[in-house]
């Protein structure tokens, strides 16, 4: 089974890590190797992270003081729009697909992904999409300041930049769907004999569930932006009231994708954390089965709560009640996960390497973001907080301290396995503490801005918001600069890091640590590993 989809040229080789590997550019352009593709995903994601980060810093620089100093309002709107799109679709999602590529075959005892050529395509769709998003900044008629949610009918007013963005979203969607099909097939068909579903590392479980979410929700987004496109150019009136359409229809369709999207980002992060915390607690994950069920119920619930992003559009009160009750329900499986992680640490034998620090940072701050989410789920309270900086603070706690911190945790955790070299632990800890402190300086104060009444997506603000905006901007620049340290740590690790051991971490127990050397060979398991 393990060789069924394997490149025939490699058949019969068991130690082929140095054989038949194309060199130079073709190794990367034509790669069908899950590790090379995983690496490309991760570097792509990091470069998009820097692009999106620069956009965030432009936003924060403008907001450092009241008044318009650096950019014009329309450019500011474009920055908030593309910062969101690039970070969500260019940085965070590809980062976790990179993890999936690297780890799933190794963790389930497979030689590679199920569809290696499609894997190549799903990566190589990303750079053109990124180029479209960046080209949109320079489109004639100016950039599209419509917000990453791209609400109609504002999108109808935008220039050609909007069309570039729509096509970018189409391409990104195709890439995600292909990646998901690959992941689902790999996990369901290519597990080594004895690796039952309920024995899989939790990271594989979270990706299996995420991949289903992607397959179900990305076409919905594609539909929403396609309708926008036809409204713009081909005389349809889906979102135009004058022609019998409804602008709010767009929001329903968008958020039917958009809410599962939140979990598409968060659930693989849960998977990484569920690997790291047990490893550094030297204790098995508490409540493995309940973790799987909790993740699945979060995924199912995520399709029933979309209108909590739209409490102020004026839907019937019965609808608001339903969405409020359904939304608060999500707190229960999420709570179970947090309790399980804390219980995993309880009576463990804890050490605090960089990845454990990031995992704990995730746990602490993601829970904080979860609580502000609970506050926002209460409709009457949300009516005061909707579209304010409170919401901005909330989702950055979930996206940055949640998804990004867990991606850092995962990278420090698996870097020795991937490169065969160790990163510098002292610098890693510096990276963690700088990120943690500056993250909170940036975003904690935004809760107060939102409560006091500062709307989001404004380039200038009333004077009462001056102090917290200045603090937030200082934090943002600190946070941004700290990420250059991360780049340095990774490059130093790859080039001159000390040799890593096969089982670098005492408490790590999944197949990549127990059965494969560091660095992992080019083809993971050409024969399935013996499992009990």
């Amino acid at each position, binding site marked *: 089974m393990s060789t069924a989809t394997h490149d025939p040229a490699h058949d019969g080789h068991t130690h082929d890590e140095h054989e038949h590997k194309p060199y130079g550019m073709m190794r990367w352009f034509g790669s069908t190797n899950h590790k090379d593709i995983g690496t490309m995903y991760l570097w792509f994601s990091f470069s998009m992270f820097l692009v999106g980060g620069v956009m965030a810093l432009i936003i924060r620089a403008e907001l450092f003081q009241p*008044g*318009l100093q650096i950019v014009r309002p329309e450019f500011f*709107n474009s920055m908030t729009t593309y910062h969101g799109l690039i970070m969500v679709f260019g940085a965070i999602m590809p980062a976790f697909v990179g993890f999936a590529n690297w780890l799933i075959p190794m963790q389930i005892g497979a030689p590679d992904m199920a569809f290696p050529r499609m894997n190549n395509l799903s990566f190589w769709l990303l750079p053109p999409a990124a180029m479209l998003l960046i080209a949109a900044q320079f489109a*004639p008629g100016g950039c599209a*300041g*419509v*917000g990453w949610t791209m*609400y109609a*009918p*504002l999108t*109808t*007013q935008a*220039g050609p930049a909007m069309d570039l963005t729509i096509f970018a979203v189409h391409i990104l969607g195709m890439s995600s769907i292909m990646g998901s099909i690959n992941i689902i097939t790999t996990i369901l068909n290519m597990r080594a004999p004895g690796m039952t579903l309920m024995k899989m590392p939790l990271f594989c479980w979270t990706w299996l569930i995420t991949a289903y979410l992607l397959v179900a929700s990305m076409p919905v987004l594609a539909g929403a932006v396609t309708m926008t496109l036809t409204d713009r150019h081909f005389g349809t009136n889906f979102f*135009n009231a004058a022609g019998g359409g*409804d*602008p709010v229809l767009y929001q329903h369709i968008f958020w039917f994708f958009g809410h599962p999207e939140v979990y598409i980002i968060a659930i693989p992060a849960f998977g990484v954390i569920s690997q790291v915390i047990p490893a550094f607690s*030297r*204790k*098995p*994950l508490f409540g*493995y089965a*309940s973790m799987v069920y909790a993740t699945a119920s979060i995924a199912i619930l995520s399709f029933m709560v979309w209108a909590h992003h739209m409490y*102020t*559009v*004026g839907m019937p*009160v019965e609808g608001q*009640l339903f969405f*409020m009750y359904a939304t*608060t329900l999500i*707190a229960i499986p999420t709570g*179970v996960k947090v*309790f399980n992680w804390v*219980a995993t*640490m309880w*009576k463990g*034998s*804890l050490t605090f390497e960089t990845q454990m620090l990031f995992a*704990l940072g995730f*746990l602490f701050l993601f829970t*904080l973001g979860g*609580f502000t989410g*609970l*506050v926002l789920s*209460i409709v*009457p*309270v949300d*009516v*005061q907080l909707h*579209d304010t900086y409170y919401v901005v603070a909330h989702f950055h706690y979930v996206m940055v301290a949640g998804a990004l911190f867990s991606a850092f945790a995962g990278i420090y955790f698996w870097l020795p396995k991937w490169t065969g070299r160790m990163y510098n632990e002292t610098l890693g800890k510096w990276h963690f503490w700088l990120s943690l402190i500056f993250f909170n300086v940036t975003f904690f104060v935004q809760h*107060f801005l939102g*409560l*006091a*009444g500062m*709307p989001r997506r*404004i*380039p200038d603000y*009333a*004077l*009462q918001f001056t*102090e917290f905006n200045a603090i937030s901007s200082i934090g943002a620049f600190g946070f941004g600069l700290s990420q250059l340290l991360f780049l340095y740590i990774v490059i130093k690790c790859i080039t001159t890091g000390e040799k890593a051991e096969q089982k670098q971490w005492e408490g790590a127990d999944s197949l990549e640590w127990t059965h494969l050397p560091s660095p992992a060979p080019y083809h993971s398991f050409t024969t399935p590993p013996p499992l009990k």
Partner: protein
Amino acid sequence: MSNKLAGIFAALLMAPAAVFADYKLNLQMPNTALGHNIYDLHSIITWICVVIFILVFGFMFYAIFKHRKSVGHKSANFHEHLGVEIVWTIVPCLILLAMMVPATKSLIELRDTSEPDMTIKATGHQWKWGYDYIKGEGEGISFYSSLSTPRSQIDGKTPEDIAARQANPNYLLETDTHVVVPVGKKVRVLVTAADVIHAWWVPALAVKQDAVPGFIRDTWFKAEKPGIFRGQCAELCGKDHGFMPIVVEVKSAADYSKWVESQKANMKKTAAATAPDKEWTADELKTHGEKVYASNCVACHMPTGMGNPPTFPALSGSKVVGGPKDAQLALLINGKAGTAMVSFKHLSDADLAGLMTYTRNAWANKGGDTVMPAEVKAARSAGK
């Protein structure tokens, strides 16, 4: 030495206090009964979250300090416990149920717009609000309300401009006209929009309602005491989303009646001055048009008429403005699809005539012609 240090520390402690004189940590003080409910609801839920947070992370930090390898703690090997798992599923359910009771009550009250004392329609435009008093005392009053903070304060090009901004307590939260309402009366607000989605939001009155073009939604408030309450558009609506504030002035019943009287008198005057059959002189049209330009066009096309290309083209020297009248009028009435130029058909015949006369004769444009309101009216009725 130690005195000096103490002095520095004292100064450091004091400095933030001076800088942070007017920061706020919580929701604005509400001015409606429902607003107080919401304020309390938010406080209760936040405190419940804080308590749970401290409890959960108390356990985590206990483990971090006591169950670490460096203090010699050996790991236990348990990995499930049915009892605990049931408890930590059921208990959050109960807490959530308890939260839902006051939340449901407030929500139902929030959405109950029945039996209002008066009704006002708020219409979002890019980028100002239009108000029509539909029912109740003041019926028939109608006006626009746009940002009155001077552009120079926003751009802050000179130290004087910046000083003026810093001295302006209502920077970006002030408008040329206020929505005036009587105290203690249930005011229903119908909210809609003319172009894209906006949102009508006044924090102290606990109302936020999206303004969806082509649809009318409603919300309500009943102010407890007189005063001026400020809010902003809360839904991204394009370039000047951050520059379309809302100012609601709550007056006592007697003051409100006086205001209604003065408004009605004003409206009569304006109606006489801009009557469709009135004969305008070229200068009157230009002066009127300059005003219309200042409140409708200046944000994009700039006071100099130079615009902000490529998104906002210059009007000075423009082919459209210098070209045939009917093409310019058609553009004003229909807008231009796919660009930021929206329709201005809501302006009156006199406004459009003045606007055209002004733009055709301002800056580098030396058309020398005038456009009469009657021409606009004729073009409109001819169906463009």
